[in-house]
């Protein structure tokens, strides 16, 4: 064991709840997991950290039986197990919540939870018993969900609770949470943490994958750090600090603050005038929003998810029809233009959903990076694509953004989450478009990459471009924005200059308190 962190306080009890020894997983020439040893005690919340592509998700899917290791053993309470599928793992009391949830959207919450293990009466599902069981379970774990709600209508945070309940319904003793907080609002994250503490106190064991240092500090007992598929450090949370964890992950120190000079705003490059999106039979999703982003400034758009930010952004980029108002790019009215025309007018867009909007998973990195550049020189001439130019450009971007990928012709579906995000960010930033709309640009990327992407956004600003930053990370908004707009129920509630903004005032505004009260 390299660098054994067996500190006196961290000595695990006799038989660890879960332990893995010598886990090896290869993907072709790539060693995703390289003799990993991991041991987790009962009732422990154990963080697994590491840079994008370090092998965290691979390890988790091995523990959960989704993948079989090439070498190594997995022991549950001292007894060796061989999971051939997730069903085997579930049978042994494992539960996993994936970041991309695996729920049936058209079914109700209770149907999703009992699916595969329904209480029965004869050959029929005992619906009443099932509903009751789900309601009881939710109440016992203080996970507020309506058993009859249809999943497609639920917010991300609630869907995640459904996933957790699904695991608990099968009485999971060990829960694996792979980047569960990436998509949560701060409020949702806090309630998730409350649930996690409660579950750990009950004696359940939690494996928690995250890139967020403050979360690790706040909730975990111990940390295992992976780098390039190997365990490089085991730490006890109480005895370490974020800088040490970062150093272990990256082998260097990463600046956790953003350096940016004074802003010199120029002409307005992105503008919305009275932008309105109606909701069928309800309050408008976006209600007469006016918004201006000038060249050389970063404007943050904050707000609890579901207050109209996504709809606003879709309307700006042309993916959603307006019910009123105008959109201007570089002073040109693009209200009636489609996505292609708006991009031509000068919009680049990092979408919040990298997998289903921002990329084509089965296509190569080269093809993914070409999108939007594929009609014009140097990538295309006279309708013909220059494959060599496409590959060259892809290699350059992969190198510049440090994407961990075998080659530019590998499909991006095989990339780790953070590396996929880098591909999307690299493509959109390379447009050098006058107006950049960045939605959750650092979701799921590691600290080093956050530093890099933040640096790139600041460079865009320095180059006189307009950046609209939409993020659920208040710290990110505060670190980067020159001005901050807070959205609440489809409106911009306040326009706060950076020097007047802090977590507290923004938090109040996001909860819908008028600026005077703040």
């Amino acid at each position, binding site marked *: 064991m390299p660098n054994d962190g067996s500190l006196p306080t961290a000595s695990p009890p006799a038989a660890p709840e879960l332990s893995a020894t010598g886990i090896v997983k*290869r*993907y*072709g020439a790539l060693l995703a997991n390289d003799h990993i040893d991991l041991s987790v005690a009962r009732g422990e919340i154990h963080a697994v950290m590491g840079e994008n592509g370090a092998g965290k*998700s*691979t390890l988790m899917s091995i523990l959960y039986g989704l993948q079989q290791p090439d070498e190594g053993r997995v022991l549950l309470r001292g007894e060796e197990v061989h999971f051939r*599928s997730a069903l085997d793992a579930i049978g042994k009391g494992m539960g996993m919540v*994936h*970041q*991309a949830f695996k729920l049936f959207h058209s079914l109700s919450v209770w149907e999703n939870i009992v699916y595969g293990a329904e209480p029965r009466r004869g050959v029929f599902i005992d619906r009443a018993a099932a509903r009751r069981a789900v309601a009881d379970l939710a109440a016992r774990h203080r996970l507020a969900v309506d058993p009859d709600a249809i999943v497609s209508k639920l917010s991300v945070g609630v869907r995640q609770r459904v996933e957790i309940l699904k695991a608990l319904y099968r009485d999971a003793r060990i829960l694996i949470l*792979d*980047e569960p907080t*990436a998509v949560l609002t701060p409020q949702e994250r806090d309630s998730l943490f409350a649930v996690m503490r409660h579950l750990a106190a009950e004696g359940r064991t939690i494996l928690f994958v995250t890139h967020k240092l403050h979360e690790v500090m706040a909730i975990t007992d111990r940390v295992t750090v992976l780098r390039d598929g190997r365990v490089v450090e085991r730490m006890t949370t109480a005895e370490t600090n974020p800088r040490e964890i970062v150093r272990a992950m990256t082998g260097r120190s990463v600046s956790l603050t953003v350096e940016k000079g004074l802003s010199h705003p120029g002409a307005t490059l992105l503008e919305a005038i009275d932008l309105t999106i109606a909701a069928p039979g309800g309050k408008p999703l976006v209600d007469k929003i006016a918004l201006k982003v000038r060249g050389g400034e970063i404007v943050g758009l904050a707000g609890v998810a579901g207050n109209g930010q996504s709809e606003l952004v879709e309307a700006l*980029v042309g*993916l959603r029809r307006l019910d009123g108002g105008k959109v201007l790019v570089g002073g040109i009215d693009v209200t009636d233009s*489609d*996505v*292609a025309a708006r*991009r*031509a007018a000068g919009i680049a*867009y990092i*979408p919040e959903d990298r*997998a*289903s*909007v*921002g*990329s*084509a*998973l*089965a*296509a190569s990195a080269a*093809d993914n990076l*070409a*999108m*939007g550049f*594929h*009609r014009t020189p140097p990538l*295309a001439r006279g*309708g*013909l*694509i220059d*494959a060599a130019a496409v590959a060259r450009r892809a290699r350059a971007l992969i190198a510049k953004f440090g994407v961990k990928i*075998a080659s530019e012709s*590998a*499909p991006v*579906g*095989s*990339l*780790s*989450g*953070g*590396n*996929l995000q880098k591909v999307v960010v690299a493509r959109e930033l390379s447009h050098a478009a006058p107006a950049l709309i960045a939605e959750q640009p650092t979701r*799921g990327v590691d600290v080093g990459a956050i530093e890099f992407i933040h640096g790139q956004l600041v460079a865009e600003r320095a180059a006189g471009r307009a950046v609209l930053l939409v993020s659920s990370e208040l710290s990110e908004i505060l670190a980067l924005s020159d001005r901050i707009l807070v959205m609440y129920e489809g409106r911009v509630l306040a326009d706060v200059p950076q020097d007047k903004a802090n977590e507290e005032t923004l938090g109040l505004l996001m909860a819908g308190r008028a600026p005077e009260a703040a």
Partner: protein
Amino acid sequence: MSAAPQPDARALSRWRPPSAAIAILFAALVGGALVLASGVNPAEAYAQIFMGAFALDNWPNTLNWATPLVGMTLVAAIPLRGGMINLGGDGQLIIGALVAAIVAIYLPGPGPLVAIAALIAAAVAAGLYAALAAWGETRHGVPMLISSLLLSYPAVGVASYIVRFPLRDTTTGLPQTALVPEGARLMALNGVLNVGLILIAAIAALVLFVDRRTVVGYELHMRGINLRFAGYGGVRLDRQAMRIMFVSGAIAGLVGAIIVLGSQFRFIDDVLLTPSYTWSGLMAALLANGEPAGAILAGLFFAALQTGGFAMQRETSVPRVLTMVLQSIVILFLAVRHGAGKSRE
């Protein structure tokens, strides 16, 4: 959440024999069992199929059968590459055939020019008819799967009416048009073969080129992988759907025209659809998941299989329908394999 095990991604890490090859092998085994059950030596039946398709003398027949079949494979493969399904090949083929017959019979002028005009008219008419299905989807939300299929029936019905009544060749008493004048027929090459073969081969080459090397091909492929990604990247999806369906329908129209102008020299009701080129073409396209090179190969394979089937039927007591059974088993096997692969993830 990361590294969502995509089928393509996995293929990288774990080599699997190409599933099409396994499917064909499997079909051959099942087919062999069927043949055996009917008291014929399977080796004998397969040998007959092989000889029937590939013996030197039979090449023209095989190629002649392959011309419309590969044509209809492209008809299905082009939209499928972009995640769209054109089930209306029959209707488009009929429209092309009928329009070609009418133009060739009634348009005065020098023969070769008339033939060219007939081909173009057939392609345009069938292309527009197919684009109608795309229009129904983009403007009115009728899924193309349904609209393309439903549009097929009126086309077939109306064409049948036209050759039975207004345009019927009253001298023969059969539901067919008059003969296309000799000058307007497609030039014969060798025995049954005519320039239609070259035309389809050229189109196939063009489709391959467009797929691999052009902006249009790139955008179509991206659409096929992820529709939302293409839209987000600025591909004009509605326009793309209309154009792709136009091209697909136009090729179907050409196939119809080639049959009329090159082999039958008149529009004969029912005869065009009996060989079900549309469905064999669709299966070939599905076999390759819309990838044009694979689809063309599959189309050629099916053509050889079906041509060989005639020989087998002649030489042994096994009916040629066996080849259609083999074809269906291949597709079924692939569908099951694909579906099973999905549910495992």
